[in-house]
């Protein structure tokens, strides 16, 4: 543990020397809660660096040429037993700004997940009528204000509007809005009692519907649908503070 006011997570990066790796390194280095202690290019170097630096997290590209079987992970475990290993497959990253941003945001979430303790949470029962939409938006704005995340209000308000409007229009009865913030990632979730799944429709400029989930996809770093045990469903979307849009 370092200074309580500025806890940082030491990270050892293991990846090839290419543009995506450089983007990842720069992005992680820019995060105040992360401390990139070293960057190495081979698994052999990684084992030596892990032993020397004892990082909290080792982030490794599984596409490295000299990565053979599970031997590396066993070796890291042996020389640095307290180091968490996070693997990623860089080759699957979409090669555009949005794809790389998404990838980095998810990676940061995984790196920080067990480190950051208590989650912030808020919940609102939303009436199953159109007025539920502005109510939910007002609630989000007030909660984010309290959480000092007011920079997220425009994007979060939009996501909430779309998710609640979907529930209100397609499912009779109230829905539940949950906001949680963990590891700087705001998660917006709307649960309803409907069995149907969100429908990603083809969107043309002239169509009058089907834009909502495209908007959600564009503004959320990641989103999805969870089936709940009682037959209800939860549609959720995550927003990273780095994803604040004007």
């Amino acid at each position, binding site marked *: 543990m370092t200074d309580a006011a500025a806890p940082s997570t030491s990270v050892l990066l293991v990846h090839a020397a290419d543009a995506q790796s450089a983007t990842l390194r720069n992005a992680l280095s820019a995060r105040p809660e992360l401390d990139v202690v070293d960057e190495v290019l081979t698994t052999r170097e990684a084992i030596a660096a892990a032993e020397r630096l004892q990082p909290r997290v080792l982030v490794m590209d599984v596409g490295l040429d000299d990565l053979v079987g599970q031997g590396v992970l066993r070796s890291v475990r042996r020389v640095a037993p307290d180091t968490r290993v996070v693997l990623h497959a860089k080759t699957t990253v979409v090669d555009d700004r949005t794809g790389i941003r998404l990838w980095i945001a998810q990676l940061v979430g995984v790196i920080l997940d067990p480190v950051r303790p208590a989650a912030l949470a808020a919940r609102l029962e939303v009436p199953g009528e159109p007025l539920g939409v*502005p109510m939910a938006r007002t609630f989000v704005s007030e909660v984010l204000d309290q959480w000092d995340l007011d920079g997220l209000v425009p994007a979060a308000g*939009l996501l909430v*509007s779309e998710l609640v409007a979907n529930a*209100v229009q397609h499912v009779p009865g109230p829905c539940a809005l949950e906001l949680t913030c963990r590891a700087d990632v705001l998660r917006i979730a709307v649960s309803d009692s409907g069995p149907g799944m969100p429908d990603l429709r083809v969107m043309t*400029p002239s169509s*009058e519907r089907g834009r909502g989930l495209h*908007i959600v996809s564009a503004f959320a770093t990641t989103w999805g649908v969870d089936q709940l045990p009682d037959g209800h469903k939860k549609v959720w979307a995550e927003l990273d503070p780095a994803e604040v849009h004007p």
Partner: protein
Amino acid sequence: MEPVSLVTRTDIVDGSAVVSVTGDVDLVSAAHLRTVLEDALELSSHLIVDVAEMTFIDSSGLSALVHVHRQAADRGARMTVRHPSPMLMRLLSITRLATVLVVHDGEPQADDRRGRAEH
């Protein structure tokens, strides 16, 4: 807490119907906006939707704009959105509506519309 409502104002400026939109456009208010714009379309063959004071819009609101835009086209009129915020421009770009709904006036043309009748 009472949700923010939508306020509109319709003026005729140089022969164009200008609807100024203030407040939030969402599932609650989109139908109202649609009605107001349809009414304004009866006043002129050029409908300008001024969204400088619009504080929020989601896909319900975009649908209302697209609906009236198509109505205008069907009757040989036109509808343009003026003063979109960066947020709205981003939304229009995501939904591929930017080139449909917004006319990018050049500077001289923008000055013109204050002082000259439009046809």
